[in-house]
């Protein structure tokens, strides 16, 4: 059985391209947590006036699968329309795009970023 831990996954998890914290330009955020393992993720987004996702960043404290999934998700959705997130985020397709075989329990690690991203909401004004 091939290992889950090919170098590509490990590199993406150890050096995520879209890792970052809140900046002044960010307009939206969302948080997610997996109670069974403690994986936590916060997503920061800058949404343009035309409802386009101008930038996405994530701060993930979790396993390699969760972190890599979050990073690939941000890569995929940056530049897309915010409205497409509702009903357009196909969890099964995202898992398949990771190119790894995941057990049902481990799929929750991969989909936590998806659930979080779907819950993007505007930042409170005082927090900007």
């Amino acid at each position, binding site marked *: 059985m091939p290992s*889950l*831990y090919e170098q590509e996954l490990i590199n993406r998890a150890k050096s995520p391209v879209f890792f970052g914290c809140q900046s002044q330009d960010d307009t939206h955020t969302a948080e997610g947590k997996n109670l069974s393992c*403690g994986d*936590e993720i916060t997503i920061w987004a800058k949404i343009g006036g035309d409802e386009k996702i101008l930038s996405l960043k994530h701060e993930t404290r*979790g396993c*390699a699968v969760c972190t890599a999934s979050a990073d690939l998700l941000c890569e995929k959705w940056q530049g897309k329309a915010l409205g497409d997130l509702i009903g357009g985020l196909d969890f099964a397709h995202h898992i398949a795009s990771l190119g790894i075989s995941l057990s049902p329990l*481990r799929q929750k690690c991969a989909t936590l970023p998806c659930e979080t991203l779907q819950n993007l909401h505007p930042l409170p004004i005082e927090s900007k």
Partner: protein
Amino acid sequence: MLRQEFSIFREQPNLVYLDYAATTPLPDVVVKAVLQASVKRAPIQRSLYPLAGQATAAVQESRTAIANFFSAKLEEVIFQSSATQALHQVILGLEAQIRPSDLLITSTREHHSLLAPLLKLASRTGAKLKYIEIDEKGEFEDNKFAQAKLVALSLTSNVTGAQLSLDSLSKLKTQQGRGGFLLLDCCQSASHSGLDFSSLPADFAICAGHKLYGPSGVAILLGRERALNTLDPLLSGGGNLVSLAHSEVQYRPLPEKLEAGSPNQEAIIGLAAALNWLTPHLPVSHKPLRAIYEVLAQESAVRIISPYSEYSGLLAFTVNGIHAHDVAEFFGEKEICVRAGQHCASLFHQDIPEAATVRISTGLGSTEADALRISVALKQLLETFHAQPL
């Protein structure tokens, strides 16, 4: 060798199973007992024909065997479907006894199945819930136990393996007296050293059948008769009533009072077979765990959360820079079965830097050779993830 008494280890000889704290593999003799009970099953205490009489007798004999294992009286042994149900029966079964002025005591190292009903009880009754500190050796200070209507603790932590001091528990119970109840979750205790309920300083003790080399679907709630009789049954109707009129019900005496519903006869009979099989192997050797502990202790990237305990057969650790899930998944690819996550003890994990831990728990199919497999897998893990020392 004991491993040969388990089909799973004969079918998968390279399997290193280190998740006994979650559930134990079934010895062949237990599988056989369950199968026989399934073939001969019939209504228990409900029908008059011989087959039903034989099935009822088999369950009664199993209760006797289980009571003997725990050094308990027959009426002190209550069958429940799970330890979670048993915990709910005790905690929520006391609701009518609890006043807003009452004090409930627990700790942050407890399993969710103990904390969740306790939180519900506190919310419903207005009673105050207090969390006490328990150190890594299982010691705790005097915490107004005399005023506590209910103290609910796990005898052995399912994360660290630290066991509560029996001396401290005795003092606690002496202070509490008959004015309150002490509930001990013993799910991680009995499979390593047995459990003598007759001398345990507690009103209630709970064990899960599937953690005692028995089948799923049965747990044992042990209780002093006086304490059990204060509990309101959470379930009513199927077998625990002596009468039902238009405006009232009357319950049968213990143990049936708290055993509504058709009993899981296959699981009960299987559990009796499991305890019969387990008894000559107690206490379980912790040499396999000790050997694993020494392997982990030598690795600078590993932090062992728990102190090594002779009595519990489990320990928790983390690896610097590698999430517990990744450690467990990587080990799983090497046919080494460990548990990772928060182990249904999220409050405990809020008190430590790591969000998740890896848990290793040994049992009767474990050998000292498991440590070598851990050692090899750990080295491969660290190379793959380029882990750094702490």
